[in-house]
Protein backbone atom coordinates (compact mmCIF):
# COMPACT_ATOMS: atom_id res chain seq x y z
CA UNK A 1 0.00 0.00 0.00
CA UNK A 2 1.37 3.41 -1.00
CA UNK A 3 -0.38 6.52 0.30
CA UNK A 4 0.62 10.13 -0.31
CA UNK A 5 -1.53 12.51 1.68
CA UNK A 6 -1.61 16.25 0.91
CA UNK A 7 2.04 16.35 -0.08
CA UNK A 8 3.83 19.63 -0.70
CA UNK A 9 7.41 19.51 -1.99
CA UNK A 10 9.50 22.59 -2.63
CA UNK A 11 12.79 22.78 -4.61
CA UNK A 12 14.63 26.09 -4.52
CA UNK A 13 11.54 27.96 -3.31
CA UNK A 14 9.54 26.63 -6.29
CA UNK A 15 6.91 24.03 -5.30
CA UNK A 16 6.88 20.84 -7.36
CA UNK A 17 3.75 19.52 -5.60
CA UNK A 18 1.06 21.38 -3.75
CA UNK A 19 -1.20 19.21 -1.60
CA UNK A 20 -0.88 16.25 -3.92
CA UNK A 21 -2.68 13.08 -2.78
CA UNK A 22 -2.48 9.61 -4.27
CA UNK A 23 -3.21 6.05 -3.20
CA UNK A 24 -2.14 2.70 -4.61
CA UNK A 25 -3.38 -0.43 -2.84
CA UNK A 26 -1.28 -3.41 -1.92
CA UNK A 27 -0.82 -5.75 -4.86
CA UNK A 28 -2.03 -3.20 -7.39
CA UNK A 29 -0.30 -2.02 -10.52
CA UNK A 30 -0.46 1.72 -11.27
CA UNK A 31 0.97 4.13 -13.84
CA UNK A 32 2.17 7.71 -13.46
CA UNK A 33 2.29 10.03 -16.47
CA UNK A 34 2.73 13.70 -17.02
CA UNK A 35 4.93 16.16 -18.90
CA UNK A 36 8.68 16.33 -18.45
CA UNK A 37 9.52 18.13 -15.23
CA UNK A 38 6.08 17.52 -13.70
CA UNK A 39 7.66 15.75 -10.75
CA UNK A 40 7.21 12.05 -11.53
CA UNK A 41 10.74 11.11 -10.45
CA UNK A 42 10.38 13.34 -7.41
CA UNK A 43 7.24 11.46 -6.46
CA UNK A 44 9.15 8.16 -6.48
CA UNK A 45 11.99 9.73 -4.46
CA UNK A 46 9.49 10.73 -1.81
CA UNK A 47 8.23 7.17 -1.62
CA UNK A 48 11.66 5.59 -1.13
CA UNK A 49 12.83 8.31 1.24
CA UNK A 50 15.45 10.01 -0.92
CA UNK A 51 13.55 13.27 -0.59
CA UNK A 52 11.43 14.48 2.31
CA UNK A 53 8.16 16.35 1.69
CA UNK A 54 7.81 19.85 3.09
CA UNK A 55 4.26 19.02 4.12
CA UNK A 56 1.97 16.00 4.22
CA UNK A 57 2.32 12.36 5.06
CA UNK A 58 3.53 9.28 3.24
CA UNK A 59 2.82 5.68 4.16
CA UNK A 60 4.48 2.76 2.40
CA UNK A 61 3.44 -0.68 3.65
CA UNK A 62 3.91 -0.58 7.42
CA UNK A 63 6.30 2.35 7.23
CA UNK A 64 5.40 5.92 8.07
CA UNK A 65 8.03 7.30 5.70
CA UNK A 66 7.62 10.90 6.82
CA UNK A 67 8.31 9.93 10.43
CA UNK A 68 11.02 7.41 9.67
CA UNK A 69 14.44 7.83 11.35
CA UNK A 70 17.44 8.07 9.04
CA UNK A 71 18.73 4.78 10.42
CA UNK A 72 15.57 2.91 9.42
CA UNK A 73 15.53 4.06 5.81
CA UNK A 74 17.70 1.14 4.58
CA UNK A 75 15.05 -1.22 5.95
CA UNK A 76 12.33 0.58 4.00
CA UNK A 77 14.42 0.42 0.85
CA UNK A 78 15.10 -3.27 1.25
CA UNK A 79 11.39 -3.77 0.62
CA UNK A 80 11.38 -1.66 -2.54
CA UNK A 81 12.92 -2.44 -5.94
CA UNK A 82 13.71 0.67 -7.97
CA UNK A 83 14.27 1.07 -11.72
CA UNK A 84 16.12 4.39 -11.88
CA UNK A 85 15.50 6.68 -14.84
CA UNK A 86 19.27 7.30 -15.05
CA UNK A 87 20.07 3.59 -14.55
CA UNK A 88 22.74 4.04 -11.81
CA UNK A 89 24.74 1.08 -13.00
CA UNK A 90 28.32 0.95 -11.74
CA UNK A 91 30.65 1.01 -14.74
CA UNK A 92 33.46 -0.87 -12.98
CA UNK A 93 31.29 -3.84 -12.00
CA UNK A 94 30.02 -6.58 -14.28
CA UNK A 95 26.35 -7.06 -15.05
CA UNK A 96 26.29 -9.90 -12.53
CA UNK A 97 27.89 -7.81 -9.77
CA UNK A 98 25.62 -4.87 -10.52
CA UNK A 99 22.58 -7.03 -10.00
CA UNK A 100 24.09 -8.78 -6.97
CA UNK A 101 24.63 -5.36 -5.37
CA UNK A 102 20.92 -5.31 -4.48
CA UNK A 103 21.48 -8.42 -2.36
CA UNK A 104 24.40 -7.05 -0.32
CA UNK A 105 22.38 -6.42 2.80
CA UNK A 106 20.38 -9.64 2.46
CA UNK A 107 21.78 -12.53 4.44
CA UNK A 108 22.35 -14.93 1.56
CA UNK A 109 25.17 -17.38 0.93
CA UNK A 110 27.34 -16.76 -2.15
CA UNK A 111 25.78 -19.80 -3.78
CA UNK A 112 22.26 -18.53 -3.18
CA UNK A 113 23.26 -15.14 -4.55
CA UNK A 114 24.63 -16.78 -7.67
CA UNK A 115 21.47 -18.71 -8.32
CA UNK A 116 19.11 -15.82 -7.63
CA UNK A 117 21.04 -13.43 -9.89
CA UNK A 118 21.35 -15.94 -12.70
CA UNK A 119 17.62 -16.60 -12.62
CA UNK A 120 16.65 -12.99 -12.93
CA UNK A 121 19.23 -12.42 -15.70
CA UNK A 122 17.64 -15.32 -17.55
CA UNK A 123 14.23 -13.65 -17.17
CA UNK A 124 15.43 -10.48 -18.88
CA UNK A 125 17.29 -12.51 -21.51
CA UNK A 126 20.75 -11.21 -20.63
CA UNK A 127 22.33 -14.24 -18.95
CA UNK A 128 24.83 -14.50 -21.83
CA UNK A 129 26.12 -11.00 -21.02
CA UNK A 130 26.50 -11.49 -17.26
CA UNK A 131 30.26 -10.93 -17.32
CA UNK A 132 30.05 -7.85 -19.54
CA UNK A 133 30.49 -4.34 -18.21
CA UNK A 134 27.55 -1.93 -18.53
CA UNK A 135 29.40 0.34 -20.96
CA UNK A 136 29.69 -2.55 -23.40
CA UNK A 137 25.93 -2.99 -23.48
CA UNK A 138 23.41 -1.19 -25.65
CA UNK A 139 21.07 1.32 -24.02
CA UNK A 140 18.18 -1.14 -24.00
CA UNK A 141 20.35 -3.90 -22.55
CA UNK A 142 21.52 -1.62 -19.75
CA UNK A 143 17.95 -0.76 -18.93
CA UNK A 144 17.12 -4.43 -18.63
CA UNK A 145 19.97 -4.88 -16.16
CA UNK A 146 18.47 -2.10 -14.05
CA UNK A 147 15.14 -3.89 -14.10
CA UNK A 148 16.81 -7.15 -13.12
CA UNK A 149 18.49 -5.42 -10.19
CA UNK A 150 15.14 -4.00 -9.05
CA UNK A 151 13.55 -7.44 -9.12
CA UNK A 152 16.32 -9.65 -7.78
CA UNK A 153 15.63 -9.17 -4.07
CA UNK A 154 11.94 -10.03 -4.54
CA UNK A 155 10.74 -6.73 -3.06
CA UNK A 156 7.20 -6.03 -1.88
CA UNK A 157 7.03 -2.94 -4.06
CA UNK A 158 8.57 -2.07 -7.42
CA UNK A 159 8.98 1.53 -8.57
CA UNK A 160 9.96 1.82 -12.23
CA UNK A 161 10.93 5.19 -13.71
CA UNK A 162 10.52 5.19 -17.51
CA UNK A 163 11.59 1.51 -17.64
CA UNK A 164 11.16 1.12 -21.40
CA UNK A 165 12.47 4.52 -22.55
CA UNK A 166 15.39 2.95 -24.41
CA UNK A 167 13.56 -0.06 -25.78
CA UNK A 168 11.80 -1.05 -28.95
CA UNK A 169 8.23 -2.26 -28.78
CA UNK A 170 9.08 -5.94 -28.61
CA UNK A 171 11.48 -5.59 -25.70
CA UNK A 172 9.06 -3.26 -23.97
CA UNK A 173 6.37 -5.93 -24.19
CA UNK A 174 8.70 -8.54 -22.68
CA UNK A 175 9.46 -6.24 -19.77
CA UNK A 176 5.83 -5.37 -19.23
CA UNK A 177 5.13 -9.11 -19.18
CA UNK A 178 7.66 -9.50 -16.37
CA UNK A 179 6.05 -6.69 -14.39
CA UNK A 180 2.67 -8.31 -14.84
CA UNK A 181 4.00 -11.66 -13.58
CA UNK A 182 5.54 -10.10 -10.53
CA UNK A 183 2.38 -8.13 -9.87
CA UNK A 184 0.35 -11.32 -10.17
CA UNK A 185 2.51 -12.80 -7.39
CA UNK A 186 1.42 -9.97 -5.07
CA UNK A 187 4.05 -7.26 -5.61
CA UNK A 188 2.78 -3.70 -5.81
CA UNK A 189 4.06 -2.12 -9.05
CA UNK A 190 4.22 1.57 -9.89
CA UNK A 191 5.44 2.58 -13.34
CA UNK A 192 6.32 6.08 -14.55
CA UNK A 193 6.07 6.41 -18.31
CA UNK A 194 5.49 8.74 -21.26
CA UNK A 195 4.53 5.81 -23.42
CA UNK A 196 0.76 5.55 -23.58
CA UNK A 197 1.00 2.14 -25.20
CA UNK A 198 2.21 0.69 -21.92
CA UNK A 199 -1.02 1.32 -20.06
CA UNK A 200 -3.65 1.63 -22.77
CA UNK A 201 -6.13 -1.20 -22.51
CA UNK A 202 -4.70 -2.64 -19.30
CA UNK A 203 -7.44 -1.30 -17.07
CA UNK A 204 -4.88 -0.33 -14.41
CA UNK A 205 -5.00 3.01 -12.56
CA UNK A 206 -3.22 5.90 -14.34
CA UNK A 207 -2.32 9.09 -12.47
CA UNK A 208 -1.65 12.06 -14.70
CA UNK A 209 0.48 14.58 -12.83
CA UNK A 210 0.48 18.21 -13.95
CA UNK A 211 0.36 21.63 -12.32
CA UNK A 212 1.67 20.31 -9.00
CA UNK A 213 -1.21 17.87 -8.42
CA UNK A 214 -2.75 14.66 -9.74
CA UNK A 215 -4.66 16.40 -12.50
CA UNK A 216 -6.41 13.34 -13.82
CA UNK A 217 -6.91 9.80 -12.54
CA UNK A 218 -8.33 7.19 -14.92
CA UNK A 219 -8.33 3.52 -15.89
CA UNK A 220 -5.83 2.71 -18.70
Amino acid at each position, binding site marked *: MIVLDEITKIYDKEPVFKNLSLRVDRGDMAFITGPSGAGKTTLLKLIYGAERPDKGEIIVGEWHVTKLK*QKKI*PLLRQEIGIVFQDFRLLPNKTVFDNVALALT*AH*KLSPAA*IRETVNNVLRDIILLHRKNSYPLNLSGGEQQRVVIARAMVAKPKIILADEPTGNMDRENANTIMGLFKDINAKGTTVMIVTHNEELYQGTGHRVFHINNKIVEREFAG
Partner: protein
Amino acid sequence: MNIVRYSLKTALKSIWQEKWINFLTILSISIAMSVIGIFAILIMNIDSAVQHWTRNFGVVVYLYDEITEEEKLKLKERFDSDEDISEVSFTSREDALQDVRRALGGNAVIMDDFNVNPLPSSFSLTLRGDLLKPDIVMEKAQIINAFKGVEDVQYGEKWLMALHEFSRALKTGALAVCAAIFIATTFITYNTIKIFFYRRKDEIETMKLLGTTRSYIRLPFLIEGFVIGFFGGLLSSGTIFALHSFLTSGAASFMPAIDSYLSVMPVAIYILIPAAGALMSVMGSLIAVGKIRY
Protein backbone atom coordinates in the same frame (compact mmCIF):
# COMPACT_ATOMS: atom_id res chain seq x y z
CA MET B 1 26.26 -11.61 2.37
CA ASN B 2 27.95 -11.86 5.76
CA ILE B 3 29.12 -8.39 6.72
CA VAL B 4 32.64 -9.34 7.82
CA ARG B 5 33.21 -11.43 4.73
CA TYR B 6 31.81 -8.70 2.53
CA SER B 7 33.83 -5.93 4.21
CA LEU B 8 37.09 -7.84 4.06
CA LYS B 9 36.54 -8.65 0.40
CA THR B 10 35.66 -5.07 -0.47
CA ALA B 11 38.57 -3.63 1.55
CA LEU B 12 41.14 -5.97 0.02
CA LYS B 13 39.84 -5.24 -3.46
CA SER B 14 40.06 -1.52 -2.89
CA ILE B 15 43.54 -1.85 -1.40
CA TRP B 16 44.65 -3.62 -4.54
CA GLN B 17 42.81 -1.33 -6.96
CA GLU B 18 44.19 1.81 -5.38
CA LYS B 19 47.58 0.30 -4.72
CA TRP B 20 49.58 3.36 -5.67
CA ILE B 21 47.87 5.84 -3.47
CA ASN B 22 47.85 3.22 -0.73
CA PHE B 23 51.55 2.74 -1.22
CA LEU B 24 52.08 6.48 -1.02
CA THR B 25 50.04 6.66 2.15
CA ILE B 26 51.81 3.72 3.76
CA LEU B 27 55.10 5.37 2.85
CA SER B 28 54.02 8.69 4.35
CA ILE B 29 52.83 6.99 7.52
CA SER B 30 55.98 4.94 7.79
CA ILE B 31 58.11 8.05 7.43
CA ALA B 32 56.03 9.78 10.08
CA MET B 33 56.12 6.80 12.42
CA SER B 34 59.85 6.35 11.86
CA VAL B 35 60.42 9.94 12.88
CA ILE B 36 58.29 9.31 15.96
CA GLY B 37 60.30 6.17 16.67
CA ILE B 38 63.61 7.92 16.26
CA PHE B 39 62.50 10.77 18.49
CA ALA B 40 61.18 8.31 21.07
CA ILE B 41 64.54 6.57 21.12
CA LEU B 42 66.20 9.96 21.31
CA ILE B 43 64.13 10.93 24.32
CA MET B 44 64.78 7.62 26.00
CA ASN B 45 68.50 7.84 25.36
CA ILE B 46 69.11 11.50 25.88
CA ASP B 47 70.08 11.09 29.54
CA SER B 48 72.51 8.32 28.82
CA ALA B 49 73.98 10.37 26.00
CA VAL B 50 74.41 13.35 28.28
CA GLN B 51 76.07 11.11 30.85
CA HIS B 52 78.32 9.82 28.15
CA TRP B 53 79.35 13.27 26.99
CA THR B 54 80.05 14.34 30.55
CA ARG B 55 81.79 11.10 31.49
CA ASN B 56 85.02 12.93 32.04
CA PHE B 57 83.41 15.93 33.58
CA GLY B 58 85.76 17.09 36.26
CA VAL B 59 85.74 19.24 39.33
CA VAL B 60 89.13 20.77 40.09
CA VAL B 61 89.90 21.48 43.74
CA TYR B 62 92.76 23.97 44.14
CA LEU B 63 94.67 23.83 47.39
CA TYR B 64 96.36 26.52 49.45
CA ASP B 65 100.13 26.56 49.04
CA GLU B 66 100.40 26.37 52.81
CA ILE B 67 98.47 23.12 53.06
CA THR B 68 100.08 20.47 55.24
CA GLU B 69 100.80 16.96 54.09
CA GLU B 70 98.38 15.74 56.73
CA GLU B 71 95.55 17.93 55.52
CA LYS B 72 96.23 16.80 51.98
CA LEU B 73 95.97 13.15 52.96
CA LYS B 74 92.79 13.81 54.86
CA LEU B 75 91.26 15.45 51.80
CA LYS B 76 92.31 12.56 49.60
CA GLU B 77 90.76 10.10 52.03
CA ARG B 78 87.59 12.09 52.08
CA PHE B 79 87.36 12.17 48.30
CA ASP B 80 88.22 8.49 47.97
CA SER B 81 85.51 7.49 50.37
CA ASP B 82 82.86 9.76 48.79
CA GLU B 83 80.49 7.59 46.75
CA ASP B 84 79.60 10.45 44.44
CA ILE B 85 83.19 10.74 43.25
CA SER B 86 84.31 8.09 40.83
CA GLU B 87 87.90 9.18 40.30
CA VAL B 88 90.42 11.20 42.23
CA SER B 89 93.81 12.30 40.99
CA PHE B 90 96.33 14.64 42.52
CA THR B 91 98.47 17.15 40.65
CA SER B 92 101.40 18.57 42.56
CA ARG B 93 102.68 22.08 42.00
CA GLU B 94 105.61 20.66 40.06
CA ASP B 95 103.41 18.54 37.84
CA ALA B 96 101.24 21.56 37.17
CA LEU B 97 104.32 23.46 36.13
CA GLN B 98 105.37 20.67 33.80
CA ASP B 99 101.91 20.64 32.27
CA VAL B 100 102.00 24.32 31.64
CA ARG B 101 105.46 24.09 30.15
CA ARG B 102 104.35 21.33 27.83
CA ALA B 103 101.29 23.29 26.81
CA LEU B 104 103.44 26.29 26.05
CA GLY B 105 105.82 24.23 23.97
CA GLY B 106 108.47 26.48 22.47
CA ASN B 107 107.25 29.44 24.50
CA ALA B 108 108.00 27.69 27.76
CA VAL B 109 110.90 30.08 28.31
CA ILE B 110 108.52 32.69 29.71
CA MET B 111 108.03 30.38 32.65
CA ASP B 112 111.65 30.99 33.52
CA ASP B 113 110.71 34.56 34.49
CA PHE B 114 109.07 33.28 37.63
CA ASN B 115 111.50 32.54 40.36
CA VAL B 116 108.89 30.73 42.36
CA ASN B 117 106.33 28.32 41.05
CA PRO B 118 103.05 30.31 40.90
CA LEU B 119 100.84 27.29 40.41
CA PRO B 120 98.78 25.63 43.17
CA SER B 121 98.53 21.94 43.69
CA SER B 122 95.11 20.42 43.03
CA PHE B 123 92.83 17.41 43.15
CA SER B 124 90.94 16.51 39.99
CA LEU B 125 87.68 14.78 40.83
CA THR B 126 85.39 12.98 38.41
CA LEU B 127 81.77 12.85 39.50
CA ARG B 128 79.44 9.96 38.88
CA GLY B 129 77.63 10.61 35.58
CA ASP B 130 74.11 10.43 36.97
CA LEU B 131 74.84 13.25 39.40
CA LEU B 132 75.68 15.80 36.75
CA LYS B 133 72.70 18.03 37.32
CA PRO B 134 73.84 21.64 37.65
CA ASP B 135 72.37 22.14 41.13
CA ILE B 136 73.78 18.91 42.54
CA VAL B 137 77.25 19.76 41.27
CA MET B 138 76.96 23.28 42.66
CA GLU B 139 76.01 21.97 46.09
CA LYS B 140 78.90 19.51 46.04
CA ALA B 141 81.31 22.25 45.05
CA GLN B 142 80.16 24.43 47.94
CA ILE B 143 80.64 21.61 50.44
CA ILE B 144 84.13 20.86 49.15
CA ASN B 145 84.98 24.54 49.13
CA ALA B 146 84.39 24.64 52.87
CA PHE B 147 86.94 21.88 53.53
CA LYS B 148 90.13 22.85 55.24
CA GLY B 149 93.02 23.56 52.86
CA VAL B 150 90.81 24.16 49.85
CA GLU B 151 91.42 27.49 48.18
CA ASP B 152 88.93 27.25 45.32
CA VAL B 153 86.70 24.77 43.47
CA GLN B 154 86.21 25.11 39.76
CA TYR B 155 83.91 23.24 37.43
CA GLY B 156 82.40 24.02 34.03
CA GLU B 157 79.28 25.57 35.51
CA LYS B 158 78.24 27.39 32.39
CA TRP B 159 78.93 24.46 30.17
CA LEU B 160 77.11 22.07 32.46
CA MET B 161 74.13 24.37 32.76
CA ALA B 162 73.97 24.87 28.99
CA LEU B 163 74.17 21.15 28.35
CA HIS B 164 71.43 20.53 30.82
CA GLU B 165 69.22 23.20 29.29
CA PHE B 166 69.95 21.82 25.88
CA SER B 167 68.99 18.29 26.80
CA ARG B 168 65.78 19.51 28.40
CA ALA B 169 64.91 21.61 25.35
CA LEU B 170 65.66 18.64 23.15
CA LYS B 171 63.33 16.42 25.15
CA THR B 172 60.50 18.94 25.09
CA GLY B 173 61.00 19.58 21.39
CA ALA B 174 61.10 15.89 20.55
CA LEU B 175 57.91 15.28 22.51
CA ALA B 176 56.16 18.14 20.72
CA VAL B 177 57.30 16.85 17.35
CA CYS B 178 56.07 13.36 18.25
CA ALA B 179 52.66 14.70 19.20
CA ALA B 180 52.43 16.74 16.00
CA ILE B 181 53.40 13.77 13.88
CA PHE B 182 50.87 11.56 15.63
CA ILE B 183 48.15 13.98 14.64
CA ALA B 184 49.63 14.17 11.15
CA THR B 185 49.43 10.38 10.84
CA THR B 186 45.76 10.40 11.65
CA PHE B 187 45.35 13.18 9.16
CA ILE B 188 47.19 11.34 6.39
CA THR B 189 44.90 8.33 6.68
CA TYR B 190 41.91 10.61 6.98
CA ASN B 191 42.86 12.18 3.66
CA THR B 192 43.39 8.94 1.86
CA ILE B 193 40.22 7.29 3.13
CA LYS B 194 38.30 10.45 2.30
CA ILE B 195 39.66 10.27 -1.22
CA PHE B 196 38.58 6.63 -1.52
CA PHE B 197 35.26 7.58 -0.10
CA TYR B 198 34.76 10.29 -2.69
CA ARG B 199 35.97 7.99 -5.41
CA ARG B 200 33.41 5.36 -4.45
CA LYS B 201 30.75 8.02 -3.95
CA ASP B 202 28.64 6.83 -6.89
CA GLU B 203 28.79 3.27 -5.68
CA ILE B 204 27.94 4.25 -2.12
CA GLU B 205 25.12 6.45 -3.32
CA THR B 206 23.68 3.60 -5.33
CA MET B 207 24.14 1.11 -2.49
CA LYS B 208 22.31 3.45 -0.15
CA LEU B 209 19.44 3.63 -2.62
CA LEU B 210 19.39 -0.15 -2.75
CA GLY B 211 18.91 -0.36 1.00
CA THR B 212 22.42 -1.22 2.15
CA THR B 213 22.96 -0.39 5.83
CA ARG B 214 25.55 1.95 7.29
CA SER B 215 27.82 -0.77 8.63
CA TYR B 216 28.14 -2.43 5.22
CA ILE B 217 29.25 0.88 3.79
CA ARG B 218 31.58 1.92 6.59
CA LEU B 219 33.34 -1.26 7.68
CA PRO B 220 35.38 -1.74 4.48
CA PHE B 221 36.85 1.74 4.90
CA LEU B 222 37.77 1.09 8.52
CA ILE B 223 39.47 -2.16 7.56
CA GLU B 224 41.34 -0.37 4.80
CA GLY B 225 42.47 2.32 7.22
CA PHE B 226 43.61 -0.33 9.65
CA VAL B 227 45.66 -2.15 7.01
CA ILE B 228 47.26 1.06 5.78
CA GLY B 229 48.22 2.13 9.28
CA PHE B 230 49.45 -1.30 10.23
CA PHE B 231 51.71 -1.65 7.23
CA GLY B 232 52.90 1.93 7.58
CA GLY B 233 53.86 1.08 11.16
CA LEU B 234 55.45 -2.18 10.12
CA LEU B 235 57.55 -0.47 7.50
CA SER B 236 58.70 2.09 10.02
CA SER B 237 59.58 -0.72 12.45
CA GLY B 238 61.77 -2.10 9.70
CA THR B 239 63.32 1.29 9.07
CA ILE B 240 64.07 1.84 12.74
CA PHE B 241 65.50 -1.64 13.03
CA ALA B 242 67.76 -1.09 10.00
CA LEU B 243 68.86 2.28 11.30
CA HIS B 244 69.53 0.90 14.73
CA SER B 245 71.51 -2.01 13.32
CA PHE B 246 73.51 0.31 11.13
CA LEU B 247 74.30 2.64 13.98
CA THR B 248 75.16 0.00 16.54
CA SER B 249 77.16 -2.26 14.25
CA GLY B 250 78.22 -0.39 11.14
CA ALA B 251 78.80 3.11 12.35
CA ALA B 252 79.77 2.20 15.88
CA SER B 253 83.02 0.66 14.65
CA PHE B 254 84.06 4.12 13.53
CA MET B 255 82.49 6.08 16.33
CA PRO B 256 82.39 3.91 19.42
CA ALA B 257 80.56 6.69 21.22
CA ILE B 258 77.35 5.86 19.33
CA ASP B 259 77.14 2.55 21.07
CA SER B 260 76.87 4.11 24.45
CA TYR B 261 74.38 6.72 23.20
CA LEU B 262 72.04 3.96 22.12
CA SER B 263 71.95 2.10 25.37
CA VAL B 264 68.15 2.01 25.73
CA MET B 265 66.21 0.42 22.84
CA PRO B 266 63.25 -1.60 24.01
CA VAL B 267 62.08 -4.35 21.66
CA ALA B 268 58.49 -3.37 22.47
CA ILE B 269 58.92 -0.42 20.15
CA TYR B 270 58.75 -2.76 17.17
CA ILE B 271 55.27 -3.84 18.24
CA LEU B 272 54.12 -0.52 19.62
CA ILE B 273 54.81 1.38 16.42
CA PRO B 274 52.70 -0.72 14.03
CA ALA B 275 49.99 -0.87 16.67
CA ALA B 276 50.03 2.91 17.11
CA GLY B 277 50.04 3.34 13.33
CA ALA B 278 47.00 1.11 12.95
CA LEU B 279 45.19 2.87 15.78
CA MET B 280 45.85 6.37 14.44
CA SER B 281 44.87 5.18 11.02
CA VAL B 282 41.58 3.63 12.06
CA MET B 283 40.81 6.84 13.91
CA GLY B 284 41.49 8.79 10.72
CA SER B 285 39.20 6.48 8.76
CA LEU B 286 36.49 6.78 11.38
CA ILE B 287 36.57 10.55 11.10
CA ALA B 288 36.61 10.30 7.31
CA VAL B 289 33.52 8.09 7.03
CA GLY B 290 31.86 9.48 10.13
CA LYS B 291 28.92 11.20 8.57
CA ILE B 292 27.18 8.80 6.22
CA ARG B 293 23.61 10.03 5.97
CA TYR B 294 20.60 8.63 4.20
